[in-house]
């Protein structure tokens, strides 16, 4: 697994989408994180949500539930919008 070290503020890859609009139960990979809000960015990174990690969205309602590696997270829409995913 190679991490993308080049930083872009918006991911330009055509398939890239936000976690919030990701298809449920389809495996993807985190391609980048939104860097505009340092607080959220720092939290996500500290919790191990990092570019290059495999990700699967399990649920949208009542909160966004997704799995990274072996751990499950629940987040709200705002945070789900901070994670960019590609398939």
């Amino acid at each position: 697994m190679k991490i993308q070290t080049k930083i872009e503020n918006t991911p330009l890859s055509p398939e890239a989408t936000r976690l919030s609009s990701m298809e449920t139960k389809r495996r993807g990979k985190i391609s980048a994180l939104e860097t505009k809000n340092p607080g959220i960015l720092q939290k996500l990174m500290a919790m191990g949500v990092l570019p290059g990690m495999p990700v699967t969205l399990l649920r949208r309602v009542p909160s966004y539930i997704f799995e990274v590696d072996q751990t499950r997270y629940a987040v709200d829409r705002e945070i789900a919008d901070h994670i960019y995913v590609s398939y």
Partner: protein
Amino acid sequence: MKLPFIYPGAECSCRKKGCKQESRMPKIVLVGNPNVGKSSLFNSLSGSYTVVSNYPGTSVEISRGKGRTGEKEYEIIDTPGMYSLLPVSEEERVSQRLLFEETPFVCLHVVDARNLRRMLSLTLQLLEAELPLILVLNMMDEAEERGVEIDSRKLSQLLGVPVVGTVSNEGKGIKELKAAIEEFSPSKTVKKIEYGAEIEPYLAEIGNLPETGGESRISTRALGALLLQEDKTALEWVCRDEKLTKEAGCPEKSFSRLQQLTEEASRKAGAPLHYLIALKRQEYVNEIVEQVMTFSGTKNETGKEKEEEEEEIYGPLTGKAKHGAKKLMLAEKVDSILTHPVLGIPVLLLVLYFGLYRFVGVFAAGTVVDFLENTVFGEHINPWITSRFTALVPFPLLQDLFVGEYGIITQAATYAIALILPIVGAFFLVFSIIEDTGYLPRLGLLVDGMFKKIGLSGRAVIPMVLGFGCSTMATMVTRTLETKRERLIANLLLALAIPCSAQLGIILSVLSGSPRALLAWAGVICLEFVLIGYLASKVLPGRNPTFILELPPLRWPKLSNIAVKTYSRMHWYFLEVLPLFVLASVLIWIGRLTGLFALALKVMEYPTLWIGLPPDAAVVFLFGFFRRDFGAAGLYGMYDSGALTAVQLLVAAVTLTLFMPCIAQFMMTVKERGLKTALAISAFIFPFAFLSGYMVSTLLAALGVSM
């Protein structure tokens, strides 16, 4: 949450200030991500007890205990979970500060073996800080169940530190860990991370600044990295040194040089430096993980496998992993019900109905309390003690103090043992079961949307539910909330609308005779909770919090852990309650001697009459000043003697629920939020509680309702 230490031989539990003895014993510090089993390991190593549950953020304070391995005695220190050396929340900062200040003999970095990839980054940071380290791979059993295998020898080689695998809640691997601690010597060959051209030059320059040369427990390189990421603690540390060197004449100039460097670095990099640094570290982590970790099962990676695929997927697995897969399937199904937007609600209501109403309200507060208070104490113990005491001590004054109407034995001890303890114990039992399954975080995600309307995030569910047990504990746990605004709203709502278990149990039991009154009470309290939360979120400046929570796996609660946890919480509670109850008895006694009690009662009679209660009820509210549960106990007494009508009971219950937080909670609010805020909260609550009582009573009278 840190609760009492139950270890006898210790003179100093270090909860009190002023007993911060500088221990000569070598220190073992447990650090690691939240919910990886640090506290559980702490308990095995030290023979003390600190609360263990199944959600991130159980420990918000540092716990200290003593432990022995072989010949040597150690001081063992448990810390709140931290994701990274660069903290985001307050409880992480507590741990970070500890690492800045303590000189450990060894740090045990505890990780969840399943999630090595997410957790090794902190290991690398701790190594960079040049802390003496042993890596503990905990929850090896769960990792194996998921088909995760880790080559710990290889990992140890790559990192240059000892690596030990454990299953802390079953005590597996503890012997090996103790052996590793005994043999431990700090390694010199630690893997160094290169951060690349955007970071390295700045790191070097910061390292050369005079301020970073001070005597810090963590390496200059790690300090420099924190400074580049604008960490508050690191800055404070530097400022501290700066004060020392102020006479040397170097202060602000080089300090501003630091800021200049940080700004320049992040401008040139075009991205936040902590992002770059984290990515770089993760590259190293991935490299390591690739070499030491293998998967033989992939079940949990997507959670979408169909059952018919199962055989195919798990065919080549070992027996353990196969068994694990079955267990996971079940957990998966339960989980999808608990987190279901529609099905989750009936589950919640069932939990509330059986756990709270039937068990705590009807069984504990009704049946058990009735038996203990009226039969055991009322018919046997108290009459016996009273007659003995009166015979032995012929002074009416002393008789009054000990066995009078408000006496230490007849009131304080009876209330504490016969009334409060069974209810609180029942609640803590239910709560322990619920928290060990991992249900609370799931409840959090279920209500996040609703909580946002009152300025809280789903994360606040944990302190709120705990508040139904003891608001004092819950106030302490609000520390896990991320913004000041959210913590303030949570503290306010805890003080106002969340009844503690003793109060709740008594109210449920007192009102259980009239379902309409019970529903009306619940309705009014819910309404107040939502209304005040909503108003507070409108009035207070700042943004609504965001919600992010790690969901721990669903687990079967372990009986031994539940028993020990319930016992330890009851123990803590009892020790806190009894002295205050006794104090109340003594104060009332003095008050009655001097006439102050009558005066205070007279004053309290005005608002009591105003909300439509008989003047006798004033005493209930006066008690309420001491402790919420004490007031509730007084209410129970009035109910028992049939002094109140159903409507009056309802009004009294509403007012008492909303009424002043007890002294202990008030003190905790002062500690967490400061005196001014705590006073402001109280100044709002006191009149508001009576206003609500007044409105309920007037409304009911106007409608001509009788319950």
